[in-house]
């Protein structure tokens, strides 16, 4: 199954907005301009947005409306960005967040 809906019985054909490229942990990916970063990631099959600081547990989309902050990632170098309400732009750099950093703890030399 593809994540993107092409045609919907009520909403009709889903309008295809402009494609843009962004990077996810260094890998180039494609999404639609202006859609939430989290949706572009979901369409590409990415589910894990971050790992918690203490227990290193994965977190992903939960509320999708900017309330719960579960989906925060490091976007263009800035941590704690709510990807479900952040519009995707060409060339965005999106990184998995570990605690509040884009680097996994073991790489921080702990």
């Amino acid at each position: 199954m593809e994540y993107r809906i092409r045609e919907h019985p009520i909403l009709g054909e889903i309008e295809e907005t402009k494609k843009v490229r962004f990077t996810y942990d260094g890998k180039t990916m494609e999404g639609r301009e202006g859609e939430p970063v989290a949706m572009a990631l979901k369409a590409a099959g990415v589910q894990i947005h971050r790992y918690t600081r203490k227990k290193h547990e994965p977190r992903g989309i939960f509320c999708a409306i900017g309330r719960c902050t579960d989906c925060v990632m490091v976007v263009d170098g800035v941590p704690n960005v709510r990807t479900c309400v952040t519009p995707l732009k060409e060339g965005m750099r999106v990184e998995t967040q570990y605690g509040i950093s884009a680097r996994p703890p073991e790489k921080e030399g702990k």
Partner: protein
Amino acid sequence: MKRYDVIVIGAGPAGLSAAVQAAEQGMSVIVFDENEKPGGQLFKQIHKFFGSKEHKAKVRGFRIGQQLLEEAGRAGVEVKLNAVVTGLYMEKEVVVKIGGAMEHFKGDSVIVATGAAEKMVHFEGWTLPGVIGAGAAQTMMNLHGIRPGRKVLMLGTGNVGLVVSYQLLQAGCEVTALADAAPTVGGYGVHAAKVARTGVPFYLSHTIVKAEGTDHVTGVTIARVDENFAFVPGTEKHFDVDTICLAVGLSPMAQLLKMAGCVMDERAGHDGTTPLCDENGATSVPGIYAVGDVSGIEEASSAMIEGRIAGLAAAAYLGFMDEKKCREAISCQKKALMSLRRGMFAPQNKGRKLMTTEEGIPLSEHLLKEGYVGDEEIGRFPGVRRSVGIHPVMECTQNIPCNPCQDACPHHCIRVGDDITALPQVDDTKKCVGCGLCVASCSGQAVFLLEENYAPGFAAVTIPYEFLPLPEKGEKGTGLGRRGEPLCEAEVVQVKTSGAFDKTNLVTLKIPGDMAMRVRFYRKEV
């Protein structure tokens, strides 16, 4: 500091309605909303609304949203988006984060329409990616065109759980099952029935034991609970799913009201999460009003009326409207609001176990426990009649405030009457011509057309169909019963689509005569 006659917080159905009403009285109005787009949750509501004409019944939620935005535009309402209200202080000073700056505004009145947030339940694995709110699923598929998952388990059978399950099916996802810790389905029976007839099983008195998976959800285990909501050992059931949707209620977002010092409602029967309001939405702080879900969880239809009432009340409070004129306008709105707050699901019936309809007919047990009306139960409801020739069969078995079917029939075959919650009746003296307008008008998809003597040994049933691909005339598939069970071969003999049906297609199936009262859905594969 900029001053407005009314500052509205939240551009959802309640807030926008309040703003329109206030602006129409000549007040200067600004609406702040933290989102990128206005409309609140309305644009995710792709189903047809219930109620009566005055409540925009049988209109899909997102279209009501579009109408509301146009109205706001015409009324000259200023909507400021990406504007997070962070404080509501003494003398109605409103602090708003716009871009990187904090800006201050003063409202001579403030209408708080901040809505509600989804509630949560905790179980092993509840934080795994793939466990999402039902609202999140709705946002993903209906706003952004993204399927939340392949196989979904829905927890919660209130209207949100039922409606979102149906929408998941419409989006092309598989709904593996619905579960609810409560012993009976919480939402409208008609919403449950349209999910059940596609073959989705309901597990009442069941809840989630654990979400399985290490990086993301790969499965779920549910189990039966006893009357104290404790798991019954040995009743565990496992399902392979990649998504778990939680629809376990909403919680008012009343933080700003508390900040402003509004007294919360701690009276018996209230849990202190909503403000104490008079019947116009006025809180204990003069000039501050609360409308929509923040003042008590209800449907968008009631939220819009509450907004209008508060807009009028604010106009009178600030002298923009004559007291008497305001009272008249409000009483008109209240009449509309009261008609929505009637029937089995009315706020005053919350928690009460009803055994019969208002007409004294025993309620369907299957509907409450499994999501569908049993074959042996359906005959006792007044809209279900058998007669010669084509005629409507109204499988509407609960008293809910809704009557578009009555208005839809050009030949007056269907009667709900003045009591909007009454079960519809079919008038045999009026001639049904089989136009199907009643089938398409029913927001609960509970109306079917039946022609018992379609051909020797065969009946024809017309069902509402809102899925893709649309069946084609001449194709053969399986006729399914009310719980989605395969019953017989069904041949598609007619497919009708029309602008007037608003995407509810009418599919007519030729089925064996003895299946006339049983087949209510269709699947292509035999």
